[in-house]
Protein backbone atom coordinates (compact mmCIF):
# COMPACT_ATOMS: atom_id res chain seq x y z
CA UNK A 1 0.00 0.00 0.00
CA UNK A 2 1.43 3.37 -0.90
CA UNK A 3 2.35 5.30 2.20
CA UNK A 4 1.01 8.80 2.70
CA UNK A 5 3.51 11.40 1.63
CA UNK A 6 5.86 12.60 4.30
CA UNK A 7 8.50 11.27 6.59
CA UNK A 8 8.36 8.48 9.11
CA UNK A 9 7.80 4.76 8.88
CA UNK A 10 5.55 3.30 6.20
CA UNK A 11 2.03 2.16 6.99
CA UNK A 12 0.12 -0.86 5.74
CA UNK A 13 -3.43 -0.42 4.45
CA UNK A 14 -4.65 -1.73 7.83
CA UNK A 15 -2.74 0.77 9.97
CA UNK A 16 -5.85 2.67 11.09
CA UNK A 17 -7.67 -0.60 11.82
CA UNK A 18 -4.86 -1.71 14.14
CA UNK A 19 -4.80 1.65 15.89
CA UNK A 20 -8.58 1.63 16.30
CA UNK A 21 -8.52 -1.66 18.24
CA UNK A 22 -5.74 -0.38 20.48
CA UNK A 23 -2.82 -2.36 19.08
CA UNK A 24 0.57 -1.36 20.45
CA UNK A 25 2.57 -0.17 17.45
CA UNK A 26 6.30 -0.27 16.83
CA UNK A 27 8.65 0.39 13.94
CA UNK A 28 9.88 -2.75 12.24
CA UNK A 29 11.85 -2.84 9.00
CA UNK A 30 10.86 0.72 8.20
CA UNK A 31 7.15 0.11 8.88
CA UNK A 32 4.89 1.15 11.74
CA UNK A 33 3.50 -2.27 12.65
CA UNK A 34 1.28 -3.77 15.37
CA UNK A 35 3.53 -5.53 17.88
CA UNK A 36 0.69 -6.77 20.08
CA UNK A 37 -3.07 -6.53 20.51
CA UNK A 38 -4.26 -8.51 23.57
CA UNK A 39 -0.74 -9.48 24.67
CA UNK A 40 2.06 -11.55 23.19
CA UNK A 41 1.52 -14.61 25.40
CA UNK A 42 -2.20 -14.84 24.69
CA UNK A 43 -1.74 -14.25 20.96
CA UNK A 44 1.03 -16.84 20.78
CA UNK A 45 -1.14 -19.46 22.51
CA UNK A 46 -4.09 -18.66 20.24
CA UNK A 47 -1.98 -19.56 17.20
CA UNK A 48 -0.76 -22.82 18.78
CA UNK A 49 -4.23 -23.91 19.93
CA UNK A 50 -6.74 -22.30 17.53
CA UNK A 51 -5.80 -19.57 15.05
CA UNK A 52 -4.30 -16.11 14.60
CA UNK A 53 -4.57 -13.46 11.90
CA UNK A 54 -1.48 -11.41 11.04
CA UNK A 55 -1.13 -8.30 8.89
CA UNK A 56 2.19 -8.95 7.19
CA UNK A 57 1.70 -6.45 4.39
CA UNK A 58 5.11 -4.99 5.15
CA UNK A 59 6.66 -7.99 3.39
CA UNK A 60 8.03 -7.21 -0.08
CA UNK A 61 7.06 -8.84 -3.36
CA UNK A 62 9.19 -9.01 -6.49
CA UNK A 63 8.19 -10.60 -9.80
CA UNK A 64 10.64 -12.19 -12.24
CA UNK A 65 9.28 -13.03 -15.67
CA UNK A 66 10.20 -14.04 -19.19
CA UNK A 67 12.26 -16.77 -20.83
CA UNK A 68 15.33 -15.71 -18.83
CA UNK A 69 13.52 -15.84 -15.48
CA UNK A 70 14.47 -19.43 -14.64
CA UNK A 71 18.17 -19.26 -15.57
CA UNK A 72 18.45 -15.89 -13.82
CA UNK A 73 16.86 -17.14 -10.58
CA UNK A 74 18.99 -20.30 -10.75
CA UNK A 75 22.08 -18.08 -10.92
CA UNK A 76 21.23 -15.91 -7.88
CA UNK A 77 19.24 -18.11 -5.46
CA UNK A 78 20.52 -21.12 -3.52
CA UNK A 79 17.62 -23.54 -3.94
CA UNK A 80 16.80 -25.36 -7.18
CA UNK A 81 14.11 -23.33 -8.94
CA UNK A 82 13.90 -25.91 -11.75
CA UNK A 83 12.28 -28.34 -9.32
CA UNK A 84 9.23 -26.10 -8.90
CA UNK A 85 5.98 -27.08 -10.55
CA UNK A 86 3.54 -24.31 -11.46
CA UNK A 87 1.75 -23.21 -8.24
CA UNK A 88 4.51 -24.58 -6.04
CA UNK A 89 6.66 -22.47 -3.71
CA UNK A 90 10.08 -22.98 -2.12
CA UNK A 91 12.07 -21.43 0.71
CA UNK A 92 15.32 -20.05 -0.66
CA UNK A 93 17.91 -17.29 -0.37
CA UNK A 94 19.21 -14.51 -2.60
CA UNK A 95 22.95 -15.01 -2.51
CA UNK A 96 26.16 -13.08 -2.05
CA UNK A 97 29.32 -14.55 -3.62
CA UNK A 98 30.61 -15.22 -0.08
CA UNK A 99 27.92 -17.86 0.50
CA UNK A 100 25.88 -15.59 2.75
CA UNK A 101 22.33 -14.38 2.09
CA UNK A 102 21.27 -10.99 0.74
CA UNK A 103 17.90 -12.12 2.07
CA UNK A 104 15.89 -15.26 2.67
CA UNK A 105 12.73 -15.53 0.62
CA UNK A 106 9.93 -17.68 -0.72
CA UNK A 107 9.93 -18.22 -4.49
CA UNK A 108 6.51 -18.97 -6.01
CA UNK A 109 6.19 -20.30 -9.55
CA UNK A 110 3.09 -18.60 -10.93
CA UNK A 111 3.30 -19.86 -14.52
CA UNK A 112 5.66 -21.22 -17.13
CA UNK A 113 8.13 -18.30 -16.96
CA UNK A 114 6.57 -16.34 -14.14
CA UNK A 115 7.90 -16.15 -10.56
CA UNK A 116 6.70 -14.22 -7.51
CA UNK A 117 9.18 -13.77 -4.66
CA UNK A 118 8.20 -12.80 -1.13
CA UNK A 119 11.07 -11.04 0.67
CA UNK A 120 11.69 -9.33 4.01
CA UNK A 121 10.31 -5.81 4.39
CA UNK A 122 13.57 -4.21 5.50
CA UNK A 123 15.45 -5.86 2.62
CA UNK A 124 13.06 -5.24 -0.25
CA UNK A 125 14.94 -2.33 -1.82
CA UNK A 126 18.33 -3.97 -1.23
CA UNK A 127 17.06 -7.21 -2.80
CA UNK A 128 15.59 -5.47 -5.82
CA UNK A 129 18.81 -3.51 -6.39
CA UNK A 130 20.87 -6.69 -6.05
CA UNK A 131 18.66 -8.57 -8.51
CA UNK A 132 18.75 -5.66 -10.95
CA UNK A 133 22.53 -5.39 -10.74
CA UNK A 134 23.01 -9.08 -11.52
CA UNK A 135 20.34 -9.37 -14.19
CA UNK A 136 22.70 -9.60 -17.14
CA UNK A 137 20.38 -12.20 -18.70
CA UNK A 138 17.64 -9.60 -19.00
CA UNK A 139 14.79 -11.21 -17.07
CA UNK A 140 11.80 -8.91 -16.52
CA UNK A 141 12.06 -7.65 -12.90
CA UNK A 142 9.46 -5.67 -10.99
CA UNK A 143 9.19 -4.57 -7.39
CA UNK A 144 5.43 -4.99 -6.91
CA UNK A 145 5.43 -4.60 -3.12
CA UNK A 146 3.03 -1.66 -3.18
CA UNK A 147 0.49 -3.72 -5.14
CA UNK A 148 -0.03 -6.32 -2.43
CA UNK A 149 -1.38 -6.63 1.05
CA UNK A 150 -0.50 -9.90 2.75
CA UNK A 151 -2.45 -11.52 5.56
CA UNK A 152 -1.37 -14.71 7.33
CA UNK A 153 -4.00 -16.99 8.88
CA UNK A 154 -2.15 -19.51 11.04
CA UNK A 155 -3.02 -22.24 13.48
CA UNK A 156 -4.72 -25.64 13.73
CA UNK A 157 -8.12 -24.08 12.90
CA UNK A 158 -6.86 -21.95 10.00
CA UNK A 159 -8.18 -24.26 7.26
CA UNK A 160 -11.61 -24.65 8.91
CA UNK A 161 -11.95 -20.87 9.25
CA UNK A 162 -10.76 -20.18 5.73
CA UNK A 163 -13.18 -22.74 4.27
CA UNK A 164 -16.05 -20.47 5.38
CA UNK A 165 -14.91 -17.63 3.10
CA UNK A 166 -13.59 -19.45 0.05
CA UNK A 167 -14.89 -22.10 -2.32
CA UNK A 168 -11.37 -23.38 -2.96
CA UNK A 169 -10.74 -27.01 -1.99
CA UNK A 170 -8.16 -26.25 0.69
CA UNK A 171 -7.26 -29.93 1.16
CA UNK A 172 -5.93 -29.81 -2.40
CA UNK A 173 -3.39 -27.10 -1.48
CA UNK A 174 -0.52 -28.91 0.18
CA UNK A 175 2.13 -27.22 2.30
CA UNK A 176 4.26 -24.93 0.16
CA UNK A 177 1.79 -24.98 -2.71
CA UNK A 178 -0.56 -22.15 -3.68
CA UNK A 179 -3.16 -21.14 -6.21
CA UNK A 180 -4.90 -18.06 -7.47
CA UNK A 181 -8.04 -17.93 -5.35
CA UNK A 182 -11.08 -15.96 -4.33
CA UNK A 183 -11.20 -15.38 -0.57
CA UNK A 184 -13.91 -13.25 0.98
CA UNK A 185 -14.88 -12.22 -2.57
CA UNK A 186 -11.40 -10.90 -3.36
CA UNK A 187 -9.03 -12.40 -5.91
CA UNK A 188 -5.49 -13.06 -4.84
CA UNK A 189 -2.80 -15.64 -4.30
CA UNK A 190 -3.54 -18.19 -1.59
CA UNK A 191 -0.47 -20.08 -0.35
CA UNK A 192 -0.21 -22.77 2.30
CA UNK A 193 2.84 -21.18 3.87
CA UNK A 194 3.67 -19.42 7.12
CA UNK A 195 6.22 -18.51 9.74
CA UNK A 196 4.74 -19.89 12.94
CA UNK A 197 5.32 -23.66 12.94
CA UNK A 198 1.59 -24.25 12.47
CA UNK A 199 -0.53 -25.17 9.48
CA UNK A 200 -1.82 -22.03 7.83
CA UNK A 201 -2.21 -19.82 4.81
CA UNK A 202 -0.90 -16.56 3.45
CA UNK A 203 -3.11 -14.50 1.15
CA UNK A 204 -1.69 -11.85 -1.19
CA UNK A 205 -4.18 -9.41 -2.69
CA UNK A 206 -4.77 -5.83 -3.77
CA UNK A 207 -4.45 -3.39 -0.82
CA UNK A 208 -7.77 -1.60 -1.40
CA UNK A 209 -9.59 -4.73 -0.14
CA UNK A 210 -7.52 -5.00 3.04
CA UNK A 211 -10.09 -3.88 5.56
CA UNK A 212 -12.80 -6.04 4.00
CA UNK A 213 -10.66 -9.20 3.98
CA UNK A 214 -9.32 -8.57 7.50
CA UNK A 215 -12.80 -8.11 8.95
CA UNK A 216 -14.32 -11.00 6.99
CA UNK A 217 -11.64 -13.39 8.23
CA UNK A 218 -12.01 -12.24 11.85
CA UNK A 219 -15.78 -12.68 11.53
CA UNK A 220 -15.37 -16.17 10.04
CA UNK A 221 -13.09 -17.13 12.91
CA UNK A 222 -14.83 -15.48 15.82
CA UNK A 223 -16.40 -18.74 17.06
CA UNK A 224 -13.16 -20.61 16.52
CA UNK A 225 -11.02 -18.46 18.79
CA UNK A 226 -9.35 -16.50 15.99
CA UNK A 227 -7.66 -13.33 17.13
CA UNK A 228 -5.38 -10.71 15.59
CA UNK A 229 -1.69 -11.37 16.28
CA UNK A 230 1.14 -8.85 16.18
CA UNK A 231 4.80 -9.06 15.31
CA UNK A 232 5.74 -9.78 18.95
CA UNK A 233 4.08 -13.20 18.88
CA UNK A 234 5.14 -13.71 15.27
CA UNK A 235 8.71 -13.57 16.57
CA UNK A 236 8.19 -15.92 19.53
CA UNK A 237 6.26 -18.35 17.29
CA UNK A 238 8.99 -18.47 14.66
CA UNK A 239 11.65 -18.86 17.36
CA UNK A 240 9.88 -21.87 18.91
CA UNK A 241 9.66 -23.32 15.40
CA UNK A 242 13.40 -22.70 14.93
CA UNK A 243 13.02 -20.46 11.87
CA UNK A 244 15.73 -17.97 11.00
CA UNK A 245 15.03 -14.23 11.00
CA UNK A 246 17.14 -12.07 8.71
CA UNK A 247 19.27 -9.65 10.71
CA UNK A 248 19.45 -12.17 13.57
CA UNK A 249 20.40 -15.69 12.43
CA UNK A 250 21.17 -14.52 8.89
CA UNK A 251 23.30 -11.64 7.70
CA UNK A 252 26.01 -10.90 5.17
CA UNK A 253 28.71 -12.38 7.45
CA UNK A 254 26.99 -15.74 7.94
CA UNK A 255 26.90 -18.51 5.34
CA UNK A 256 23.81 -20.61 4.82
CA UNK A 257 25.75 -23.69 5.98
CA UNK A 258 26.56 -21.98 9.27
CA UNK A 259 22.87 -21.11 9.70
CA UNK A 260 21.78 -24.78 9.31
CA UNK A 261 20.33 -23.93 5.90
CA UNK A 262 22.37 -26.44 3.92
CA UNK A 263 19.03 -27.97 2.90
CA UNK A 264 18.26 -24.95 0.70
CA UNK A 265 21.75 -25.03 -0.89
CA UNK A 266 21.46 -27.20 -3.99
CA UNK A 267 25.16 -27.31 -4.78
CA UNK A 268 24.61 -29.82 -7.59
CA UNK A 269 22.09 -27.70 -9.53
CA UNK A 270 24.81 -25.87 -11.48
CA UNK A 271 26.67 -22.63 -10.95
CA UNK A 272 25.11 -19.93 -8.74
CA UNK A 273 26.33 -16.94 -6.78
CA UNK A 274 27.99 -18.17 -3.59
CA UNK A 275 28.22 -21.82 -4.69
CA UNK A 276 32.03 -21.85 -4.85
CA UNK A 277 32.27 -20.34 -1.35
CA UNK A 278 29.82 -22.90 0.02
CA UNK A 279 31.71 -25.79 -1.62
CA UNK A 280 34.97 -24.47 -0.19
CA UNK A 281 33.47 -24.12 3.25
CA UNK A 282 32.07 -27.63 3.07
CA UNK A 283 35.65 -28.82 2.48
CA UNK A 284 37.38 -26.60 5.01
CA UNK A 285 34.76 -26.52 7.74
CA UNK A 286 32.46 -23.92 9.27
CA UNK A 287 33.65 -20.90 11.25
CA UNK A 288 30.61 -21.02 13.54
CA UNK A 289 27.42 -23.02 13.85
CA UNK A 290 23.89 -22.08 14.84
CA UNK A 291 22.56 -24.02 17.83
CA UNK A 292 19.40 -23.99 19.91
CA UNK A 293 19.51 -23.79 23.69
CA UNK A 294 17.26 -23.73 26.75
CA UNK A 295 18.18 -21.82 29.87
CA UNK A 296 19.00 -24.25 32.68
CA UNK A 297 18.83 -21.54 35.37
CA UNK A 298 16.61 -18.48 35.84
CA UNK A 299 17.41 -15.84 33.24
CA UNK A 300 16.35 -14.84 29.75
CA UNK A 301 18.83 -14.77 26.89
CA UNK A 302 18.43 -11.85 24.50
CA UNK A 303 19.80 -11.02 21.07
CA UNK A 304 23.46 -10.05 21.22
CA UNK A 305 24.28 -11.52 24.63
CA UNK A 306 27.75 -13.19 24.71
CA UNK A 307 28.03 -16.99 24.86
CA UNK A 308 30.81 -18.64 26.87
CA UNK A 309 32.14 -22.11 26.10
CA UNK A 310 34.74 -23.78 28.34
CA UNK A 311 35.57 -20.52 30.10
CA UNK A 312 35.99 -18.44 26.96
CA UNK A 313 33.75 -15.93 25.28
CA UNK A 314 33.13 -17.88 22.10
CA UNK A 315 29.84 -16.89 20.53
CA UNK A 316 26.70 -14.79 20.67
CA UNK A 317 22.95 -15.11 20.97
CA UNK A 318 21.04 -14.25 17.77
CA UNK A 319 17.50 -14.59 19.18
CA UNK A 320 16.42 -15.21 22.75
CA UNK A 321 13.07 -15.03 24.47
CA UNK A 322 10.67 -16.70 26.81
CA UNK A 323 8.80 -19.35 24.77
CA UNK A 324 5.13 -18.88 25.68
CA UNK A 325 3.92 -22.31 24.57
CA UNK A 326 6.92 -24.35 25.73
CA UNK A 327 7.12 -22.32 28.95
CA UNK A 328 10.91 -22.25 28.86
CA UNK A 329 13.47 -19.57 28.13
CA UNK A 330 15.00 -20.46 24.78
CA UNK A 331 17.37 -19.05 22.22
CA UNK A 332 19.51 -19.48 19.14
CA UNK A 333 23.23 -18.78 19.21
CA UNK A 334 26.37 -19.08 17.13
CA UNK A 335 29.11 -21.16 18.78
CA UNK A 336 32.36 -22.69 17.52
CA UNK A 337 31.49 -25.83 15.49
CA UNK A 338 33.43 -28.04 17.91
CA UNK A 339 31.18 -26.85 20.75
CA UNK A 340 27.93 -27.46 18.86
CA UNK A 341 26.45 -30.57 20.40
CA UNK A 342 22.92 -31.11 21.76
CA UNK A 343 23.07 -31.83 25.47
CA UNK A 344 26.26 -29.86 25.97
CA UNK A 345 26.24 -26.90 28.28
CA UNK A 346 27.02 -23.31 27.32
CA UNK A 347 26.91 -20.17 29.45
CA UNK A 348 24.93 -17.08 28.47
CA UNK A 349 26.26 -13.78 29.82
CA UNK A 350 23.31 -11.85 31.23
CA UNK A 351 24.16 -8.47 32.77
CA UNK A 352 27.77 -9.48 33.59
CA UNK A 353 26.63 -12.80 35.06
CA UNK A 354 27.14 -16.20 33.43
CA UNK A 355 23.98 -18.29 33.42
CA UNK A 356 23.87 -21.98 32.46
CA UNK A 357 22.08 -23.10 29.30
CA UNK A 358 21.82 -26.50 27.61
CA UNK A 359 21.97 -27.09 23.88
CA UNK A 360 18.91 -28.83 22.46
CA UNK A 361 17.90 -30.36 19.14
CA UNK A 362 16.09 -27.95 16.80
CA UNK A 363 13.30 -27.13 16.34
CA UNK A 364 12.21 -26.40 19.88
CA UNK A 365 8.61 -26.97 18.84
CA UNK A 366 7.16 -29.27 16.20
CA UNK A 367 3.40 -29.29 15.70
CA UNK A 368 1.57 -32.54 16.40
CA UNK A 369 0.71 -34.44 13.22
Amino acid sequence: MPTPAGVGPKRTALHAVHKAVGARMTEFGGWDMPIEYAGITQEHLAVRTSAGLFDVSHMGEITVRGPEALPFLQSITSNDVSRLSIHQAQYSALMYPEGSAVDDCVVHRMGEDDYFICVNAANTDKDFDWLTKHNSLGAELKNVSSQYSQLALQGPRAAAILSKVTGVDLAAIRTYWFRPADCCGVNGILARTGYTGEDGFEFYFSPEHSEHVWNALLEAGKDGGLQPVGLGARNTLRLEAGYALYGHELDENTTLLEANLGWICKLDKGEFLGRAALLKQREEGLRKKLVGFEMAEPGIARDGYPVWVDGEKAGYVTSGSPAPFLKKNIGLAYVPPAAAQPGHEIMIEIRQRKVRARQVILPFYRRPK
Partner: protein
Amino acid sequence: MYPEEFQYTKDHEWIRVDGETGTIGITDHAQKELGDIVYVELPKSGDAVTAAETFGTVESVKAVSEIYSPVTGEVTAVNGKLQDHPELLNTDPHAAAWLIRVKLSDPGEVQKLMSAEEYEAYIQEAESH
Protein backbone atom coordinates in the same frame (compact mmCIF):
# COMPACT_ATOMS: atom_id res chain seq x y z
CA MET B 1 -5.63 5.65 38.34
CA TYR B 2 -2.39 6.94 39.90
CA PRO B 3 -2.60 7.03 43.71
CA GLU B 4 -2.34 10.53 45.21
CA GLU B 5 -0.21 9.27 48.10
CA PHE B 6 2.60 8.10 45.77
CA GLN B 7 5.45 10.10 44.26
CA TYR B 8 6.64 9.24 40.74
CA THR B 9 9.85 9.22 38.69
CA LYS B 10 10.35 10.00 35.01
CA ASP B 11 11.45 6.38 34.60
CA HIS B 12 7.96 5.21 35.69
CA GLU B 13 8.64 4.04 39.23
CA TRP B 14 6.46 5.00 42.21
CA ILE B 15 7.32 5.36 45.91
CA ARG B 16 5.01 5.49 48.91
CA VAL B 17 6.66 6.95 52.00
CA ASP B 18 5.62 5.98 55.54
CA GLY B 19 7.91 7.73 58.02
CA GLU B 20 11.46 6.63 57.22
CA THR B 21 10.44 3.77 54.95
CA GLY B 22 9.62 3.93 51.25
CA THR B 23 7.84 1.21 49.27
CA ILE B 24 8.85 1.19 45.61
CA GLY B 25 7.18 -0.23 42.50
CA ILE B 26 6.66 0.35 38.79
CA THR B 27 3.70 2.27 37.46
CA ASP B 28 0.71 1.00 35.53
CA HIS B 29 2.03 2.91 32.53
CA ALA B 30 5.34 1.00 32.79
CA GLN B 31 3.67 -2.42 32.89
CA LYS B 32 1.48 -1.52 29.91
CA GLU B 33 4.53 -0.45 27.91
CA LEU B 34 6.34 -3.69 28.76
CA GLY B 35 3.50 -6.11 28.09
CA ASP B 36 3.46 -9.60 29.61
CA ILE B 37 6.02 -9.54 32.44
CA VAL B 38 7.79 -12.86 32.92
CA TYR B 39 10.88 -12.24 35.04
CA VAL B 40 12.04 -9.92 37.82
CA GLU B 41 15.52 -9.46 39.31
CA LEU B 42 15.66 -7.57 42.62
CA PRO B 43 18.36 -6.74 45.20
CA LYS B 44 18.59 -8.42 48.61
CA SER B 45 17.69 -6.99 51.99
CA GLY B 46 20.64 -4.98 53.24
CA ASP B 47 21.74 -3.88 49.76
CA ALA B 48 22.17 -0.17 49.14
CA VAL B 49 20.20 1.66 46.47
CA THR B 50 20.93 5.12 45.09
CA ALA B 51 18.51 7.69 43.74
CA ALA B 52 18.30 7.60 39.92
CA GLU B 53 20.49 4.48 39.74
CA THR B 54 19.33 1.05 38.62
CA PHE B 55 18.52 -1.52 41.32
CA GLY B 56 16.82 -4.28 39.38
CA THR B 57 15.42 -5.55 36.12
CA VAL B 58 11.96 -6.38 34.86
CA GLU B 59 11.61 -8.47 31.71
CA SER B 60 8.55 -8.98 29.55
CA VAL B 61 8.30 -11.44 26.68
CA LYS B 62 9.63 -8.80 24.32
CA ALA B 63 11.84 -6.48 26.36
CA VAL B 64 14.29 -5.94 29.21
CA SER B 65 13.76 -2.89 31.39
CA GLU B 66 16.01 -1.54 34.14
CA ILE B 67 14.34 -0.21 37.28
CA TYR B 68 15.69 3.00 38.80
CA SER B 69 15.45 3.85 42.46
CA PRO B 70 13.49 7.01 43.30
CA VAL B 71 15.58 7.44 46.49
CA THR B 72 18.83 6.57 48.25
CA GLY B 73 18.73 4.10 51.12
CA GLU B 74 19.01 0.54 52.33
CA VAL B 75 16.74 -2.30 51.23
CA THR B 76 14.73 -3.61 54.19
CA ALA B 77 12.32 -5.96 52.38
CA VAL B 78 11.90 -7.57 48.96
CA ASN B 79 8.61 -8.80 47.51
CA GLY B 80 9.30 -12.52 47.28
CA LYS B 81 5.98 -13.26 45.55
CA LEU B 82 7.27 -11.77 42.30
CA GLN B 83 9.83 -14.53 41.77
CA ASP B 84 7.10 -17.09 41.12
CA HIS B 85 4.40 -14.64 40.03
CA PRO B 86 5.96 -11.85 37.95
CA GLU B 87 2.60 -11.45 36.19
CA LEU B 88 1.38 -9.66 39.34
CA LEU B 89 3.25 -6.67 37.92
CA ASN B 90 0.74 -6.59 35.06
CA THR B 91 -2.35 -7.10 37.18
CA ASP B 92 -1.60 -5.12 40.34
CA PRO B 93 1.44 -2.87 39.86
CA HIS B 94 0.44 -0.28 42.46
CA ALA B 95 -0.25 -2.67 45.36
CA ALA B 96 0.43 -6.44 45.45
CA ALA B 97 3.37 -6.13 43.05
CA TRP B 98 5.48 -3.69 45.07
CA LEU B 99 9.17 -4.43 44.48
CA ILE B 100 11.23 -3.38 47.52
CA ARG B 101 11.05 -1.43 50.78
CA VAL B 102 13.84 0.99 51.55
CA LYS B 103 14.98 2.82 54.69
CA LEU B 104 15.45 6.35 53.36
CA SER B 105 18.84 8.04 53.81
CA ASP B 106 17.44 11.44 52.94
CA PRO B 107 13.64 11.84 53.14
CA GLY B 108 14.06 15.21 51.39
CA GLU B 109 14.81 13.38 48.10
CA VAL B 110 11.15 12.52 47.73
CA GLN B 111 10.29 16.20 47.28
CA LYS B 112 12.12 16.16 43.92
CA LEU B 113 9.73 13.54 42.51
CA MET B 114 6.45 14.09 40.68
CA SER B 115 3.00 14.11 42.24
CA ALA B 116 0.27 11.89 40.75
CA GLU B 117 -1.10 14.87 38.84
CA GLU B 118 2.32 15.82 37.47
CA TYR B 119 3.02 12.20 36.50
CA GLU B 120 -0.26 11.87 34.61
CA ALA B 121 0.52 15.03 32.69
CA TYR B 122 4.02 13.68 32.02
CA ILE B 123 2.83 10.39 30.49
CA GLN B 124 0.12 12.12 28.48
CA GLU B 125 2.78 14.38 27.05
CA ALA B 126 4.96 11.35 26.24
CA GLU B 127 2.06 9.51 24.57
CA SER B 128 1.14 12.44 22.36
CA HIS B 129 4.53 12.22 20.62
